């Protein structure tokens, strides 16, 4: 893989096809954990980790088990089981090693299992027919894109606490309007392709 294609794939994953602002994958934690920037950073890093490891494991299982045995229809079930176990493992790890982050993430940590982004990237790797290195790279970079999005969003939301807006929009609605403005900004990256 040339440096050019790595850069191109990364840019596509982070900006042009940003998981949150373009593909709508990973919205639940995006809206749920973005009230404070430090929790957002923690969540972002956890998601990058889970996405990268989940993609590598699902790729290997897919290539060497599902495809060989012609069991492609079992992809959804197998992939989600792998992701669920992985998240369980991450939870135990954080509980023992970084208890403060574990507490801060709270209920949203097991919810990484149902994070569309993790299953989404595993399925996209199959649809796009990436090889192992491309899959891992794509997963990692999409996670980075997710993290950038969630950090941007949470910094804006922290400021929103002091803003004056119609009461009807309190909570999610104003967050969604904010997200739409960020999404318009990201539209500027459409068609960006260097190589």
């Amino acid at each position, binding site marked *: 893989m040339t440096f050019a294609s790595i850069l191109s794939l990364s840019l596509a994953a982070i900006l042009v096809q940003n998981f949150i602002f373009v593909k709508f994958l990973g919205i639940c934690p995006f809206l749920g954990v973005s009230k404070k920037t430090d929790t957002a950073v923690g969540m972002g890093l956890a998601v990058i980790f889970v996405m990268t490891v989940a993609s590598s494991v699902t790729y290997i299982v897919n290539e060497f088990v599902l495809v060989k045995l012609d069991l492609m*229809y079992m992809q959804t*079930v197998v992939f989600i089981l792998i992701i669920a176990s992985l998240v369980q493992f991450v939870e135990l790890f954080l509980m023992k090693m970084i208890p403060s982050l574990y507490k801060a993430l709270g209920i949203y940590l097991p919810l990484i299992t149902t994070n569309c982004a993790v299953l989404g990237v595993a399925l996209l790797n199959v649809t796009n027919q990436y090889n192992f290195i491309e899959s891992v790279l794509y997963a990692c970079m999409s996670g980075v894109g997710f993290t950038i999005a969630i950090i941007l969003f949470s910094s804006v939301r922290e400021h929103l606490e002091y803003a004056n807006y119609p009461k009807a929009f309190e909570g999610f609605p104003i967050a969604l309007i904010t997200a739409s403005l960020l999404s318009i900004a990201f539209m500027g990256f*459409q068609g960006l392709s260097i190589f």
Partner: protein
Amino acid sequence: MKNTPVAMISVLAIICLAVSALLGFVNFLTEDTIAEIAEAKVQAAMADIIPNATFEQVDATAYPAVTKMYKATSTSGENAGVCVQLSSSGFAADIVLIVGINADKTIAGVRITSINETAGLGSKANDPAWLSQFEGLTGTLNLVKNSKTADNDVVAISGATVTSTAVTKGVQTALDAAADYLGGGK
């Protein structure tokens, strides 16, 4: 049920097995229908591009970008060209193209069997009027923004540059592969 390791593992295992059995069964029921639908789409597109011909799949391993290649033989037994099925990376997802190339290496027609681009913009690529501009072209295609000045110009859809580029690139790949297959270079 109690939370003993034995109970936990066996219940999870039984559920997994039951689900796998159900899926195996449904897959068995639907496999053939799904394959037929996919093939029917391709056959219909090919018959639309090169009418009055029969199509026979040929080995396309020499052309890695091509998914499938079919040799077309007209009802009178002559070589009617080649049909190529390939995927091109669009804005949102892959666009699946069927490109028909005549025996004289000009494009007979382009059809799209799978497109999921932005409604109102990229989705316009599936408009027969836009696709018809590929017909009769040969050699190296040139995507332009405004209007056609040279023979090999293809006018992009305004506001859907990525989709237009994807389709044009796909057609070019098909054209090159077909020209190579039909022999004698471009």
